[in-house]
């Protein structure tokens, strides 16, 4: 048995040290791979110049290539620092500008999708016809690669003069309402029969049962599925930006980087997207645990 430790020390042992170690290992591996993958190019350059390259020089060069196969972590960090802090946020090259474009359509789509998902779930729980006829289709449509047709939706909506934020938000809505609908149906059905019977003995109306029992009971399910929904609507927004001729947004940065072989730019955009996803998911997690605590849910 382990001896009793304070909660902070315990947290360090359980989380900080293992996660930190794994992160350090990942970064170390990243450096190793960047040297290994970029070395052939340097050797090739040296061979063309008719010289051989010293190992120390090779190490240095592989980490500072202009267009590396795999950029070293510090190159990506430098690119992010440059595009986030050195440029004005309104500049077309600023990552903040592109991130804001993606974030706005993500959030719009996420809010619309969550509302739609909740509405559908409420309808399904209260209507036997919808439950039996619509629910199988909701599950089936989850197997459809909606993301793959996202570019088509964008192009088609552009053809009828719907441009800007809305088409991308529509894709995010389409993607994010599924997890919310499925999770909320489960959540609204989570009260036990005994509780429902109790409400019936109180002569509670349908709306009273809904607001006083079903809705509070579904809160943990709502936030769990909202976490999935926000992550997937970010993916939808990024993929939705791919075909718009690479104008603005994280997806446009990815596409432009892949056209011009700017690997550092691709990686910087990827890391930015990852950070954004992490922040969004953990924000919803925090709100969720606050709401759950107010609702009296014990973890």
């Amino acid at each position, binding site marked *: 048995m382990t001896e009793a430790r304070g909660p902070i020390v315990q947290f360090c042992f*359980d*989380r900080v*040290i*293992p*996660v*930190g*170690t*794994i*992160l350090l290992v*990942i970064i170390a591996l990243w450096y190793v791979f960047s040297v290994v993958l970029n070395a052939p190019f340097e050797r090739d350059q040296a061979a063309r110049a008719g010289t051989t390259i010293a190992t120390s020089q090779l190490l240095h060069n592989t980490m500072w290539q202009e267009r590396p*196969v795999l950029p070293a972590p510090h190159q990506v960090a430098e690119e992010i620092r440059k595009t986030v802090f050195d440029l004005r946020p309104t500049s077309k090259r600023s990552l903040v500008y592109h991130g804001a474009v993606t974030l706005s359509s993500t959030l719009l789509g996420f809010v619309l999708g969550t509302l739609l998902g909740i509405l559908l779930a409420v309808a399904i729980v209260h209507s*036997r*016809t919808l439950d*039996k*006829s*619509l*629910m*199988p*289709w909701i599950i*089936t449509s*989850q*197997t*459809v*690669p909606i*993301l*793959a*047709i996202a*570019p*088509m939706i964008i*192009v*088609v909506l552009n*053809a*009828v003069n719907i441009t800007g934020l809305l088409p991308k938000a529509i894709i995010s809505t389409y993607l994010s309402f599924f997890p919310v609908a499925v999770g909320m149906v489960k959540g609204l059905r989570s009260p036990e029969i005994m509780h429902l019977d109790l409400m019936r003995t109180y002569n509670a109306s349908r709306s009273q049962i809904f607001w006083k029992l079903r809705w509070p009971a579904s809160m943990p399910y709502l936030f769990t599925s909202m*976490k*999935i929904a926000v*992550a997937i609507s*970010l*993916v939808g927004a*990024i*993929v939705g930006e*791919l*075909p718009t001729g690479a104008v603005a947004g*994280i997806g446009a940065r*990815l*596409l432009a*980087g*892949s056209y011009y*072989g700017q*690997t550092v730019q*691709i*990686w910087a*955009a*990827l890391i930015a*997207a*990852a950070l954004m*996803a*992490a922040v969004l*998911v953990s924000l919803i997690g925090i709100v969720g645990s606050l709401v759950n605590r107010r609702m009296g849910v014990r973890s």
Partner: protein
Amino acid sequence: MKRSPLAILSLLLALGGLILPAGGDGGVLAQMAPTVIFVAAAVAVFVARSTFSLVALLLLVHVGAFMLLGMLSSFAAAPPLLGYWCMVVAAWLLAWLAVQRLAEFTVTSRQLQKLVNLALPLLFGAWLLILWELVVRGFGVPTILLPPPSMIASRIAASVPTLWADFQQTYLKAALAGYAMGCGAGFVAAIIVDRVPFLRNGLLPIGNLVAALPVVGIAPIMVMWFGSYWQSKAAVVVIMTFFPMLVNTVAGLAASGAMERDLMRTYGSSYWQTLVKLRLPAAMPFIFNALKINSTLALIGAIVAEFFGSPIVGMGFRISAEVGRMNVDMVWAEIFVAALAGSLSYGLITLVERAVTFWHPSYRT
């Protein structure tokens, strides 16, 4: 007998269909369709609920719907008039009523109940297609915005070889190979992670995070590394499927109860015996959950990766190329193939899951 407001509304609309002009050149169908729909509405309103009236309603409303579909070709010159739309809405309401009554229909035989449960979503889907066709062609929506289902179906029938070649390239080569490698690697990694608590504490939060990341974003990098053939798509799929499998399997390995594990210990069973005989079977629901999630992800990953560069075959390539040429019906044909492939693989995994986890409470009746 209580009459539902929906039925009365549909009767009024059907009456409108009888009186108001429908437009078009008025063939035999244009004369018969209003009558059929009116009779269907009358059945819904006036005949008491019974098996007979339900069957009659179902039959009449579908005959009426097919007559409406048949009338569409006569609207080439002029758009349909109000009478036609009255009939469309009436038919839709009646179909809704029929499905509602079918859902409330109590059958004693279990096999018949299964049939009814299967028929409900099928009817719903069929009506989605019927309304799509009626509305898109009736309003003359430009096909570039939304082609009618009949146009998509004829495009599918006309280009089976192309679709098959694309399917082979994207699904059979890229998605399946990546799926197998990603799920396999995730499974093995989960067993290792489960064995080493330090790794579990360190890797799981990262795995949870990565599972939420926009992993499709690595597609351009993979295309740069592995070239534009199917290997790069498989690589994207491997990375996309690895983490859901890892996270779910680790959660599943923790699912067996302490009492059962103690029992295994009293039997003196080794780590591997406990793993194979207790913990892996207990983890199966979680593993199949990951397999299901991954089956969708694999197809998405393979298709999206093709947007960043591919040979001139493949579903993603075809979608982006035909969008550029505004051949939207071909795009929809590819979407149909993708949806079909996705649903079938999902269904297949569900069947295997039922066979493997027959003991799980959700499958016991």
